[in-house]
Each structure stands twice: as structure tokens, then as C-alpha cells.
């Protein structure tokens, strides 16, 4: 096939080459990007970094830093920074560096960032990820490239079940885990007939599934289901459906703006007075309660952590966090704090030797400690965290709406 090139002027072609060069050059040199906070922060003593005289241990953190979930990401990052600050950014004789990249709520971009952190910045481990589909995409990458990956928020059950990997551990929760024990509790305390409602996407289905497992095996009946699209503006029509079904209680999973709208409208449409509202703990979590106003009073939700948790570890954590960041911590801050501790203690057990990546991951599996959220350890079978689940009700205490823990479910495993 003969291709005519007459209209291709030589100068133009050279310019294109120049532009391509300009594009590629920064790529070759863009290895050292990334916002880095490391030992250079609080502890000035980092200068005598001769201990072990090894390379710094690099932790690649992937979290949302822009758009909808930016607050989640910020809290996660705060939690990690706080723990590393406490231990002086050192573990197993090595300096710890935290490299942060934006998850961008886009799997393609997040995967690109994961590759950058591993291939270009030479991160030893990856941690973080909020969006489940992104976590699943990164899971395949770390599994193929043997990079230890500590999932610190994403809740898709597959990550530690069908798609479990030698290199993937999860310090957060599964979508089913936080709801499973609440199922039995709902049956025993709220009633035998429940209406379930959650956004129509994978996480919504899994959350409700976890509840159903606990609730129906206890003997309860689901009298109706509704699956509004994610980001629904108006729950009015669903609430009218619920009224019609006359359940003993409603069980819901909503997070973020969806949780704000649903809880507000649940009260505005007059259901709150008639039917108790229970659900997963994002329904009345710290980040949504201010926007929900009085509507959230009386709403219940189960989660792996609560601000009101009355243990020395948690009180200490909350106090230090407030001092450091000037605001109350969230569940994500705890996830970050614990993730940092798992990584640091893992490195400690290996005495700073991270040459064998499989060992780095396996070392995580042996770690157990009492976290601000209570005692935690990993399930050896699926690398999933075993933790307490707390059921909290929002009540007006001293004229202020607060979550009060009304039931504690101990050492909950992922209900496979």
C-alpha cells in the first residue's frame, strides 16, 4: 500500500516530533512527583537517618482528593499521618515515606496512579482506595505485580472472597459485615416484618444482602424492597411505597448526600413518627449528621466505629485527633490510623526487611492489636479484618445530637 505524503510538510513533521518529545520528556522525568509528606514533618531528628542505613520504606496512598469523596480521602490521610507522626515516621529501623495520589473517582486514572506509585515512585506497598470498582481494578494489578495492598475503605465483598489475593488485605469492612449482626438484632428488637431500601448499585445490594442474611436466618420476613438509583433527588415516591407496605421497621443503606436526603425526607414525609429507621451506620455517621439536622434523631445504624465509643484507646485517639486537626475524627480517620499501624508493625516484625513482598503482606496477617474501634485481627482464611460492630442511635444528649451505642456485636467475621 502506497501512502502519499505530499501534504505532509517536513517542518510540520519535525514540529510534531518536537511536541511528542516535549510530551515524553516530562514522562521520563516525572518519577519524583506526588505530594510527599515524610519524616521531614514534625520530628527534626530525622536527620540522623543512618539507622539501618537502608532506603526509606515508601507507602503509596490512593485516596479521593477531588470531587465528591474528597472529605473521606482527607480523613483517611489524616489518620495515617497521625499514626506515623506518633511513631516518628520510623519502623523496623527504616524511615517511612507517605506518597499520596488522587483516586479521581475514575478507575482508569486511579490505576494509572497505582502504576505510577509502584513503577515510578517505587512504593513498597499500596494502601487506601474508597471506590469498590477501583479497588477491584487495582486488585488485579497488585496481584500480577506482587505488590502488597492494604484496602482501607472499599467494601466490595469480592475483594476478600472470590477475588482474594495473597497480596490483598483489608483493614476496613465488607459491605455485608457491618449489617449482618444488625439483622438478628432488628428481628429481636424492632419487628419481624422489614422493608429494605438502598441505592441500586453493587454496594447497595451487598449491604442489604448482609442484613438479610442475619435477619432472615433469625426468622424475619422482608415485606418490600426498593432500589432507587444512586444520587436520587427525591425519595418521596419510595417513602409512599413504604407507608403502603406497613412494615414493623425500615432497614436502609445510604451514604453521603443520599443519606442526608433520605433521612430528611423520611422525617418530612411523616414516616419517622410511625416506623423505626435502622440501617448501616453511614445513615447517621458523623459526616452527614450536621446536614441532616433534627431529622436524624432516633435513627439507628451499625458501623465498625463510633465517636462515642467509651474505651481508653478511642478517647485517646479522639482527643489527639481533635488537637491535631481541629475537628472530630470520622470512621475513615480510624481506618487510616489503623492501616498505618498495620503497615508499621508489619515492617517492625520483618525488622525493616521488605525485600520479599509476599512476606510483607503475610506479616500484616499476623498483626492484632486494640484499635480505637476495639480489638482487631485478620481472618487468616480471607485476609479480612475481624472486628466489633456497634449499633448506635442518634439521641439528643445535653441539647446536642449525638450517637449513643445501644448494642455491641463482638468479633464479627465477614459473613460468607
Amino acid at each position: 500500500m502506497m501512502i502519499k505524503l505530499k501534504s505532509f510538510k517536513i517542518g510540520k513533521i519535525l514540529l510534531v516530533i518536537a511536541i511528542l518529545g516535549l510530551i515524553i520528556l516530562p514522562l521520563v522525568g516525572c518519577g519524583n512527583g506526588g505530594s510527599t509528606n515524610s519524616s521531614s514533618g514534625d520530628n527534626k531528628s530525622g536527620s540522623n537517618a543512618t539507622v539501618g542505613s537502608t532506603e526509606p520504606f515508601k507507602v503509596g496512598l490512593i485516596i479521593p482528593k477531588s470531587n465528591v469523596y474528597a472529605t473521606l480521602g482527607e480523613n483517611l490521610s489524616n489518620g495515617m499521618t497521625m499514626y506515623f507522626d506518633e511513631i516518628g515516621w520510623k519502623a523496623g529501623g527504616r524511615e517511612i515515606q507517605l506518597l499520596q495520589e488522587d483516586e479521581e473517582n475514575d478507575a482508569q486514572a486511579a490505576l494509572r496512579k497505582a502504576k505510577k506509585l509502584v513503577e515510578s515512585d517505587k512504593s513498597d506497598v499500596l494502601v487506601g482506595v474508597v471506590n469498590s470498582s477501583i479497588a477491584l481494578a487495582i486488585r488485579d494489578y497488585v496481584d500480577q505485580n506482587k505488590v502488597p495492598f492494604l484496602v482501607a475503605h472499599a467494601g466490595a465483598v469480592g475483594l476478600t472472597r472470590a477475588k482474594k489475593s495473597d497480596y490483598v488485605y483489608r483493614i476496613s469492612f465488607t459491605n455485608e459485615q457491618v449489617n449482618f449482626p444488625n439483622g438478628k438484632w432488628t428481628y429481636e428488637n424492632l419487628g419481624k416484618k422489614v422493608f429494605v431500601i438502598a441505592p441500586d448499585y453493587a454496594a447497595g445490594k451487598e449491604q442489604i444482602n448482609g442484613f438479610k442474611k442475619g435477619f432472615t436466618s433469625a426468622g424475619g420476613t422482608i415485606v418490600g424492597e426498593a432500589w432507587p438509583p444512586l444520587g436520587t433527588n427525591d425519595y418521596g415516591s419510595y417513602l409512599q411505597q413504604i407507608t403502603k407496605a406497613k412494615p414493623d421497621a425500615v432497614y436502609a443503606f445510604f451514604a453521603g448526600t443520599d443519606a442526608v436526603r433520605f433521612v430528611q425526607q423520611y422525617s418530612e414525609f411523616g414516616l419517622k413518627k410511625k416506623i423505626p429507621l435502622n440501617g448501616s451506620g453511614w445513615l447517621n455517621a458523623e459526616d452527614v449528621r450536621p446536614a441532616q439536622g433534627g431529622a436524624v434523631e432516633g435513627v439507628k445504624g451499625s458501623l465498625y466505629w463510633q465517636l462515642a465509643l467509651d474505651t481508653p484507646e478511642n478517647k485517646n485517639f479522639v482527643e489527639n485527633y481533635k488537637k491535631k486537626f481541629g475537628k472530630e475524627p470520622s470512621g475513615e480517620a480510624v481506618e487510616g490510623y489503623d492501616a498505618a499501624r498495620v503497615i508499621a508493625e508489619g515492617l517492625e516484625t520483618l525488622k525493616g526487611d521488605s525485600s520479599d513482598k509476599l512476606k510483607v503482606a503475610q506479616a500484616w496477617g499476623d498483626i492484632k492489636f486494640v484499635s480505637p474501634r476495639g480489638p482487631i485481627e485478620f481472618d487468616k482464611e480471607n485476609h479480612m479484618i475481624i472486628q466489633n460492630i456497634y449499633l448506635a442511635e442518634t439521641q439528643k444528649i445535653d441539647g446536642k445530637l449525638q450517637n449513643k451505642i445501644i448494642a455491641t456485636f463482638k468479633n464479627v467475621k465477614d459473613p460468607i
Partner: protein
Amino acid sequence: MNRKNLLAMSVLFLISLVLPWVIAVYPLGIVIEILIYGIFASSLNLLLGYSGLVSFGHAAFFGIGAYTASIFAQNVSANIFFTLPAAVIVSLLAALIIGFFCTRVSGFYFLMLTLAFAQMIYAIAHQWESLTGGSNGLSGIPVPQLWSGFSFEDQKLLYYLILIVFLLVIFGIRRFIASPVGQTLIGIRENEGRLKAIGYNIRNYKLLAFVIAGGLGGVAGALYSYFNGFVSPHEVYWTVSGHAIIMVIIGGAGTLIGPTLGAGFLIILQSVVSSYTDRWYSIVGLTFIAFVLFAPKGIMGLISLLKLPGKKEVTQNFNVEGEKA
């Protein structure tokens, strides 16, 4: 053929051949992404640049190609001689059906109708869980193979595969535009009424352009699934269509390599800037505005400014309105 041109082409070709051996894995990955989005933006450019049809739903074909290749790779075979044609055929068919409707309207209505169809495809990708994996998408897609035993595990090999497809697509578009059909499309863009009066069946020409663009968009989608090993509904969402439009405009609408340059510019801008600052949205936005103010004809326009009296390839402005502007 001009000897200088031959030389320049050879240099460019050699650079692209040795590239995997001189740059590291991560930058090579970015080059691959640029080639994939270069194909995607170039396919959109067939409509937007050459035919004057502003499609706001091109992500539909990217998504259809990616899902088809992934589903076939997971359930039937990961052989590219199988998955790539499958992706092309399904996206061609989809483009034929969608194009049949969309080419009945023009201008702003064309834009909105393509958006509507793409969002319906998005809804299907999101809701048809048994086929598409729902909102989590499909992950763990097998590595593409040339034949059994020879798979593209090594990123360098994948780079060459994608480079070959990219070159074929670019030269294919070049030949198509130079052909009588392609020239007619440009004629339609410039003056639809006149060609209608002469007796051309405008709609068939537009439909042809739409179908070819859709098929090539599917190719880009299939390559995307090879490279990333996953696909999610996000790839069909309207923001992806919007990004493709921006790639074409920034690169230079109606130019052969402009869209690829635009894709490269946008991908690098986004990935580099977002590593340094959380304020990258502002920087990307301000860059768009800067293009409007200082380089309204895109990167190719800048090049032709710098450059000597070359053949004017940069197109004129036109309205979404098409003939009625």
C-alpha cells in the same frame, strides 16, 4: 516522494520503535494510553472535525467495544483475532442503529440525541448486572493472546500491538478523508445545502461517517480493555464523551494528528498536575480557557502559526447548527 519527508517519517517511526527500550514502564503505560485515546479522539474527529457533526455520545462506542472485548475474553477466548473483530462488529452495528436515528436531526439536536443514546447505553451497562457486572464493572479480564501460548503479558508487546493498530487507524482515516467520499463529507460540512441541491444523499454520507467513527471508537474501547484488564460503566458516562470532544478541540478539529496530540496533552496534564496539587481541576479548567483565548485552533493551530507557509489544514469554525449557523 520527497526525500526529506521520508527521512522525517523514518525518524518518527524509529523513535516509536525503540521507545519501549528507552523509557520506563510507567511512562510507557502513559504512551499506550495516549495511543488508545488518540484512536478514540481521532474517530470522533471524523464526525466533529471532518463532517461537522458534534457528537456528545461517542463514549457509547468506546464502552461497547470495551465491554464486548471483555465479555468475549472472559467467556469465549482471549485471542485478539477474535475479541477485536467482535468488538468492531458490535460497535459498528450499534453505530448503525444509533446513527440511523441521529442522522435524522442536525446541529444541537444531533448533539443531544447522541447524548441520549449514550446515556441509555450507560444505563444498560449499569443495570444489566449478569452481563456487565453492574456498577463494579468487569475486572480480571484475561490478558489478550495472539495465539494460545503467546499472550501480551509484557507491556512492551502490548505497546507494539497498540502502535500497529494506531498507525493503521491514522493512515486509514487519512486515506478515507482523501477519498471522494471523505471529500464529500467535508463538502457537507462546508455547505450542506449546496451538496443537497446537486443531488447528494446527505444522510447516507453522514450515516457512513457515523458508522466508521463508531467502529473505530469500538477499537479504542477494545484496546482499553486489553491494557487495563477491566471495564466499568464509568467508561460510557457522558464525561468521557466530553473529554473526547475536548481532546479533539485542543488538538485541532479537522486535522489528522491533532486529536492524538490533544489526547496526549490532556492525559499528561491531568496525570502530572494531579500528582502535584489537589487544585488540578482549576489548572485543567484554566488551560481550557487559555486555549480559547490564545490558541483557538488548538495545538495544530499553534504549529501552523509557528510554521512556514504550509498547506492550510486547520479547519474553519462552524456552528453546531450546521447549515443554519
